[in-house]
């Protein structure tokens, strides 16, 4: 038992992994990994329910994964956020992914209790950086089911970076955290500057993991069996599921053994049965060379993501201070060698890739002041203080802020002073202000826990007892507020996205925008529902982002009918764990709507997936033919990537048709990504048009800035113009569009100052007024606008013009693509 923790704070961090999970604790000085009842650092994320309904978790359940797959579930993390309940046939029970994850979390919680005598109520749980909102919400739900009353979610790469930064003496510079888990790949670019840690950026592949290594070996074994035994095993056939599970188990063991041996024989737990042949026990010898040839394409796929991230942040791989490996699959020697060789940066030594994430989560729990010890009996002595201070901080001179909130339990202090218990620092005495509050600057000793005693005195200089009597601040590397992993916005009827929170926004966050409805909602009508789709992703077209929730305003819930063009004040709010809530205020009704429907990953219907796959294949064929006709080799290279991904989708679709939901989800997401990639190819195909757009945009913006811009805008425009040139040289369509958007914003800011701007827009809207959704209202606005123009009231004219635009018709196909959005 880790008895050293007694009397010290207890911060709990959990790495809830796809394959294995781990729990670590931090006492303000060092981290410890909590061993499970079997003495292991890692607990398999596996749950079994037997015929009597008894639940086992971890290693005990893992043993049944091959023998009894109908009653044993693993890798359910990949299904978090879906509403799919997984059955346990013998007991007739079924559990959702959060319920299964809760079993693992509860087991880890019990391990902490067994080792430390404290059943923690709070924890930080790590999640993949590219988890979407429904997946984060499902993780929080699992934590609540496991008995945690307060949790914070932390992106895994930040957790591992914190642990790596905490445990090592590091110099300044940029470094990479390469995190390959069982099911996901994350790469983060971090920067240490004066001891402060900053996430420069991150990227990843939600469906690349060590499990793909195993499947590559399984596919190799299936091919060898067909070649040598004439038996065809299909991954997508339900009747072959047991044989495939045995091969996969053998592949996992072989992968580990090959990190030491030159070749291994795949050890099958039992003979293979396919239903088409007698049981047989093939001898499959896998050499390290063959294994490497199987996994290197996957490693290269991860390296392409690394290079994309480095390129995006203008960082040379050779300039990286180090690479930190995280995750079980990164112990594979060929992976380490390949990554180090391609990126040309040193690999950080002495860090345990298997438990680094849990350790970082525990350190973050301290930053978030999530002490997991249950509150003791309330014994108040002296004046009660409400203190705010960083439990962990990098700054050597932080502030302690406080306020006397209960002066009835003793004499009231008038001054406060803090003195460090090691005698190294003593603050000035600070006088309490009229609010009985104080702000005291303190000095910390580096890289250790700094205990302070609070010395309070009354007006006569007599010491006054205060509660609490002291506080502790740990100095060390930390990161401030957790950043949002993916941008969040609202899909508009035009298929554009109104961005609410940009990727990297510090959490918690809240933002409001006013939208306008595009059609009326009839009171009492069951069919009349106004939808406000909430999407997540980095594209400015809604259909290329993921739908993560829909706020609905149904006809049956409104107090009176809502006309088209009505205002909706929408507020989105994210807590520190990345959980979202939405609130729509409709001033015309004086009603608030807060129910976000379908906060789920959309179901992966195999028929829809098959149709989408066929469409995208046809699109690739058309683009290829076009590229050959017009001699555009760069397009052919891009299409090769798309074709490879489509082949993966085809295989996943087969598995999904055989009942593998996880593969279906992977296929769904990959299809969206291919769709976005083909959009970029289409745009690059129209390069001559893009060239024209560059000229047109820069000419227009340059003109506006020259006439109406400030000196600083002119300077910024020069920077943007240079960036446009770079993107044009690199044929980087996405970056080019981003820079053109920036240029447009600069130009439009300048255009604001032109007194002709709003009259021009008003005239344009007026010319289309016959097609307005509410003609009488539009005609009234036209009259009001003309009057405003005549009296040169440009502020009023602007408001009227915006209202008029909102009444003009939308494109139905754009609306369909934009998740049937009902707002502008």
């Amino acid at each position, binding site marked *: 038992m880790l008895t050293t923790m007694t009397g010290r704070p207890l911060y709990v961090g959990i790495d809830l992994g796809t394959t294995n999970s781990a729990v670590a604790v931090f006492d303000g000085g060092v981290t410890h990994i909590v061993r499970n009842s079997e003495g292991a650092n890692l607990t398999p994320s596996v749950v079994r329910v037997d015929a009597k309904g008894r639940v086992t978790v971890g290693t005990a359940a893992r043993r049944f994964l091959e023998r009894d797959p109908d009653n044993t579930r693993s890798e359910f993390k990949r299904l978090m956020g879906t509403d799919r309940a997984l059955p346990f046939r013998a007991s007739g029970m079924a559990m959702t992914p959060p319920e299964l994850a809760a079993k693992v979390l509860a087991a880890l919680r019990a391990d902490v209790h067994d080792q430390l005598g404290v059943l923690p109520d709070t924890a930080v749980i790590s999640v993949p950086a590219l988890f979407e909102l429904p997946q984060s919400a499902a993780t929080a739900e699992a934590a609540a089911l496991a008995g945690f009353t307060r949790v914070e979610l932390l992106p895994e790469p930040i957790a591992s970076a914190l642990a790596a930064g905490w445990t090592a003496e590091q110099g300044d510079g940029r470094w990479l955290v390469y995190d390959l888990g069982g099911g996901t790949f994350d790469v983060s670019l971090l920067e240490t500057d004066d001891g402060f840690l900053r996430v420069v950026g991150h990227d990843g592949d939600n469906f690349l993991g060590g499990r793909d290594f195993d499947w590559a070996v399984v596919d190799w074994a299936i091919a060898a069996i067909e070649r040598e035994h004439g038996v065809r095993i299909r991954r997508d056939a339900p009747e072959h599921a047991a044989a495939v599970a045995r091969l996969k188990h053998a592949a996992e063991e072989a992968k580990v053994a090959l990190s030491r041996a030159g070749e291994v024989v795949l050890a099958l737990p039992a003979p293979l049965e396919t239903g088409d042949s007698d049981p047989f026990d093939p001898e499959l010898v896998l050499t390290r060379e063959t294994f490497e040839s199987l996994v290197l394409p996957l490693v290269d796929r991860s390296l392409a993501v690394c290079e994309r991230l480095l390129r995006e942040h203008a960082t040379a791989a050779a300039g990286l201070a180090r690479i930190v490996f995280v995750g079980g699959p990164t112990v594979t020697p060929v992976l380490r060698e390949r990554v180090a060789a391609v990126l040309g940066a040193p690999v950080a030594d002495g860090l345990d890739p298997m438990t680094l994430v849990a350790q970082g989560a525990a350190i973050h729990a301290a930053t978030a002041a999530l002490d997991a010890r249950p509150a003791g009996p309330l014994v108040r002595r002296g004046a009660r203080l409400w203190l705010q201070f960083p439990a962990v901080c990098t700054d050597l001179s932080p502030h302690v*802020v406080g306020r006397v909130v209960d002066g009835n339990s003793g004499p009231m202090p008038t001054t406060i002073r803090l003195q460090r218990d090691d005698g190294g620092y003593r603050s000035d005495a600070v006088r309490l202000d009229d609010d009985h509050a104080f702000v005291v600057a303190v000095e910390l000793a580096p890289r250790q826990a700094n205990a302070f005693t609070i010395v309070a005195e009354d007006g006569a200089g007599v010491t006054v007892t205060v509660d609490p009597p002291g506080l502790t601040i740990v100095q060390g590397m930390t990161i401030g507020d957790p950043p949002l992993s993916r941008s969040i916005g609202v899909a508009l009827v*035009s298929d554009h996205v109104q961005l609410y929170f940009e990727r990297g926004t510090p959490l918690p966050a809240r933002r409001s925008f006013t939208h306008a409805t595009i059609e009326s909602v009839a009171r009492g009508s069951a069919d009349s529902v106004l939808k406000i789709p909430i999407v997540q992703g980095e594209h400015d077209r809604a259909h290329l982002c993921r739908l993560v929730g829909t706020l609905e305003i149904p006809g049956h819930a409104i107090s009176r009918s809502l006309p088209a063009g009505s205002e909706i004040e929408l507020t989105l709010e994210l807590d520190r764990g990345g959980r979202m809530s939405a609130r729509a205020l409709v001033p015309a009704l004086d009603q608030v709507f807060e129910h976000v429907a379908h906060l789920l990953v959309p179901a992966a219907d195999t028929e829809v997936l098959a149709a989408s796959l066929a469409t995208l294949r046809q699109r690739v064929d058309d683009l290829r033919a076009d590229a050959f006709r017009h001699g555009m080799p760069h397009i052919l290279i891009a299409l090769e990537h798309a074709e490879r991904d489509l082949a993966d989708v085809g295989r996943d679709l087969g598995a999904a048709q055989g009942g593998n939901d996880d593969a279906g989800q992977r296929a769904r997401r990959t299809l969206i990504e291919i769709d976005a990639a083909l959009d970029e190819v289409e745009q690059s195909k129209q390069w001559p048009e893009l060239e024209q757009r560059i000229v047109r945009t820069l000419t227009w913006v340059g003109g506006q800035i020259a006439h109406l811009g400030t000196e600083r805008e002119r300077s910024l425009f020069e920077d943007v113009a240079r960036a446009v040139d770079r993107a044009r040289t690199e044929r980087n369509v996405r970056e080019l569009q981003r820079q053109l958007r920036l240029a447009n914003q600069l130009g439009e800011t300048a255009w*604001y100052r032109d007194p002709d701007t709003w009259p021009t*827009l008003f005239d344009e809207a007026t010319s289309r007024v016959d097609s307005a959704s509410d003609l009488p209202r539009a005609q009234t606005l036209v009259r009001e606008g003309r009057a405003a123009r005549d009296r040169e009231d440009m502020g009023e004219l602007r408001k009227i013009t*915006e209202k008029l635009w909102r009444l003009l018709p939308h494109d139905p196909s754009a609306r369909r693509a934009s998740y049937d959005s009902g707002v502008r």
Partner: protein
Amino acid sequence: MSVTDRWADNPFFVLELSVAASRAEVERAGQKWLDMLAVGIGRAAIYMTPLGARARTPELVRSATAALRDPERRVVHELWYLDHAPTPPDDDDVVDVDDGDIGFDAMTPLGWARP
């Protein structure tokens, strides 16, 4: 965000720092204001700008701290802080852009395309 908001919400105003502030001073100021807001110290709820007093919120402080952590974003705010004086509201030739209305940037999603 209107030009006025962009100016008044400049992180250097929000955190009451000079453009010469070090990274440590940025973190220190961010932490101090958040803690003061948390315990309800009245003077923390307002910050002064050349356009008058503005409400300081935890979201604004977090956002300001994050903006100044990023060197690329910080330099833009430094430029705005130093050089981008607000448009005089009494200038007859200038359109009033106050009040945080939906704004011109949002006209494109509304369906407007530049001529």
